[in-house]
């Protein structure tokens, strides 16, 4: 297997990151927004892998694992909160309805 071109991977990562950011901004469904943040994190993961490849160091992969672990924890908590909100009586995932707080 040949090594992927780090710059190409970086560009892909930037695109992924932008897509994720766009998703957070545009999507109104909480689950999709959560997924979009995960995409942003994954873009960072990809960038780390690419960078680690560029410098031939394992640091990038270590960081990758950390980020993945965090992403998992974050989505776990996020899902739990959504469930909790559901149980508390909010039956929609539309983020626009989350405006009981006056902001």
């Amino acid at each position, binding site marked *: 297997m040949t090594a992927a071109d780090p710059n190409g991977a970086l560009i892909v990562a930037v695109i992924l990151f932008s897509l994720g950011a766009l998703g957070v901004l545009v999507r109104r469904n909480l689950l999709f927004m959560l997924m979009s943040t995960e995409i942003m994190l994954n873009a960072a993961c990809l960038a780390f892998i690419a960078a680690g490849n560029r410098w031939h160091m394992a640091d990038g992969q270590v960081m990758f*694992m950390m980020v993945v672990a965090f992403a*998992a924890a974050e989505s776990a908590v996020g899902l739990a909160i959504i469930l909790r909100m559901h149980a508390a009586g909010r039956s929609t995932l539309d983020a626009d309805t989350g405006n009981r707080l006056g902001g």
Partner: protein
Amino acid sequence: MSQFLADHALAIYVAFTVIFLCIVVALSAALGPRRVGAARGRSMSLPYESGILSTGSARIRLPVQYYLLAVFFVIFDVESVFIYSWASVVVEAGWAAFISVTTFVVFLTLALIYLWRSGALEWGPKHRRMPVKVPPNSPVELVKIPEREVV
């Protein structure tokens, strides 16, 4: 060419498998008969194709355990990644890493015990917290509620 094949054997395998399976599905679609009109049984459009009409939507809310389980899976599976990364370099990393991993596993076990104790792993029948109350002049016969009931 051959070098390419050797290098990308897995990729070619994947491509081949995907194409093959698609062909199989397409083939069955092409070869199978099509029934329209009267030839199409009335109950074919019903769930379970048994003629029994189902009630309600199939988009039901599932017990919370399923969601909890998904969360635990995500956490434990990702945590095990750290063990994976140690597993391939046990000898090289030496005792220091072993101590770290032991700490990690202790944490993980403790978390598991916590989940266990807080009842997150309970799937089975639960005791009803509150006995079902039947009004005194209810026409319904007082049905004996079994001690353990599946919820």
